[in-house]
């Protein structure tokens, strides 16, 4: 029986129950809550009835349901995130604190990786250019590679590991020790305080870190080129930026913004809805990293494709 969770809603047996579930919730909670709860309940009831009817469901069907349910949760989370982000009061103080946590505390790691990436990439590219006698192309090659692709991606992957797991673990442990519930019952709007601020901060900080990473990478590359080809700094910079256009920088920033949002939102989503005690905290941190890295690669692919159409 291969059914998706939405397909089974349309089968005769379940649609009645679906509408019953829809009506069972008070309209004061808003339409989306009614719909959401109804879908959840239908899936739940279906699971029970399937468990009673001896398992006919193939693993694939169950996975489809999990996936649709997960997507539904995620879309609701994003909706809430955008709604709360534009609604005052704004927690500027906490946003600045989070920018510091996310941005400043990642600087050493980004400095190191950016620098090493620049040097290594220069060293690795040189032999193939030497064979054409085209080592003067090195600066622009490195600049294109760093600014278009490497800086945003390296920064995002490092931050997915550092910032994403940190957010997932922090919010996850607050969730399982009921600190988030405690904020909720004291009217402290934990979603605004914990989630919105972190997502805003990481959306702002990852682009800054990515630009910084590109800069440090180019510096690393310059040192290596200076050592080997004795190119002056001025020549290096003018060569490097010869091939870089507005579109390159724009695309790169767009990518970094998307990556920053992804890292913040995925970390918060996994942490804020963690469950199952300390085990859940570890899982939240872990899945935050895995999922945001996965999404980062997909976004990279999509944005590069779109920018190539624009070019």
């Amino acid at each position, binding site marked *: 029986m291969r059914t998706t969770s939405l397909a089974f809603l349309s089968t005769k047996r379940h649609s009645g129950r679906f509408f019953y579930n829809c009506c069972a919730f*008070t309209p*004061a*909670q*808003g339409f989306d809550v009614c719909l959401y709860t109804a879908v959840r309940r239908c899936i*739940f009831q279906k699971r*029970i009835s399937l468990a009673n009817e001896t398992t006919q469901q193939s693993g694939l069907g169950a996975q489809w349901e999990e996936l649709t349910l997960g997507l539904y949760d995620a879309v609701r989370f994003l909706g809430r995130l955008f709604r709360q982000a534009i609604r005052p*009061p704004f927690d500027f103080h906490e946003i600045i604190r989070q920018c510091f946590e996310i941005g400043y505390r990642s600087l050493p790691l980004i400095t190191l990786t950016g620098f090493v990436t620049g040097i290594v990439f220069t060293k690795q590219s040189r032999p193939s250019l030497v064979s054409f006698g085209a080592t003067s192309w090195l600066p622009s090659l490195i600049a294109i590679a760093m600014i278009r692709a490497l800086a945003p991606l390296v920064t995002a992957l490092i931050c997915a590991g550092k910032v994403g797991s940190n957010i997932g673990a*922090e919010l996850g442990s*607050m969730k399982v*020790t*009921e*600190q988030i*519930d*405690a*904020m*909720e*019952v*004291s*009217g*402290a*709007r934990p979603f605004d*305080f914990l989630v919105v601020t972190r997502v805003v901060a990481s959306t702002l900080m990852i682009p800054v870190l990515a630009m910084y990473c590109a800069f440090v990478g180019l510096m690393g590359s310059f040192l290596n080129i200076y050592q080997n080809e004795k190119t002056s700094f001025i020549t290096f910079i003018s060569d490097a930026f010869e091939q870089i256009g507005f579109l390159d920088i724009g695309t790169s920033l767009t990518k970094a913004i998307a990556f920053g949002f992804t890292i913040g939102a995925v970390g918060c989503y996994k942490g804020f809805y963690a469950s199952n005690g300390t085990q859940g905290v570890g899982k939240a941190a872990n899945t935050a990293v895995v999922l945001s890295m996965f999404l980062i690669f997909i976004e990279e692919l999509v944005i590069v494709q779109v920018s190539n159409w624009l070019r």
Partner: protein
Amino acid sequence: MAYAHQIDYAQRVIDIRGLYKSFGPLKVLQGVDLDVFKGENVVVLGRSGTGKSVLIKIIAGLLPPDAGTVNVLGRHVSELSEEELRMLRLKLGFSFQNSALYDSMSIRENLEFPVSRNMPGMSKTALDDLVKETLDAVGLLNKIDRMPSELSGGQRKRIGIARTLMLKPEIMLYDEPTAGLDPVTSVEINNLINEVQERYNTSAIIITHDLACAKATGDRLVMLFEGKVAKAGSFKEVFASDDPEVQKFYNYNFIQ
């Protein structure tokens, strides 16, 4: 009843009718009815896993009920919008089973947090005075600049209670205030609960396994058994019953 206080039997602050809650196949609450009158301390007793914590989480709107009405201070909790629920919660003080202190913040920040989030206009000095006054009320003024991890379990409980008092609640919900504490500290907590009631004129639901706590703080006892209220009345009335479940509970606490 260590303290004499006024109970207004004409005014219900909490009114629960036919409350049901299950988690999947696990039926937890199966038709609970419960009243709390103004100024009254109601103790909810019950074995581990009978849904006592679930009950007060439903009262605070942290969990949705499956069926039944939950009326708190004249408002139906499950029918409120997000903002209305937030306003109602400001009148509830929820002391969590494990204290739930914010462990990235100092004790001072823990106490300041609910106030600065809800009344951003309050002046620094007024807030500071309020923090000190409240910490003094729970007898832990000397811990003001410590971190939660540096406190003992009993101290954490008291800070948790102090944090809820910062917003001057009308109803206190205590989840196992004395669990895991030594008898002397338990007595201190019991006294604190009574003092809070005197000083802030609150009504309260106190969840506990501890009959000494129930006896010291409760005006009325309610015993949950298999998802329903099995017995209700004063301490004497409840434990005069020869219901084996009630007796088991009593013997466990006093004879063991």
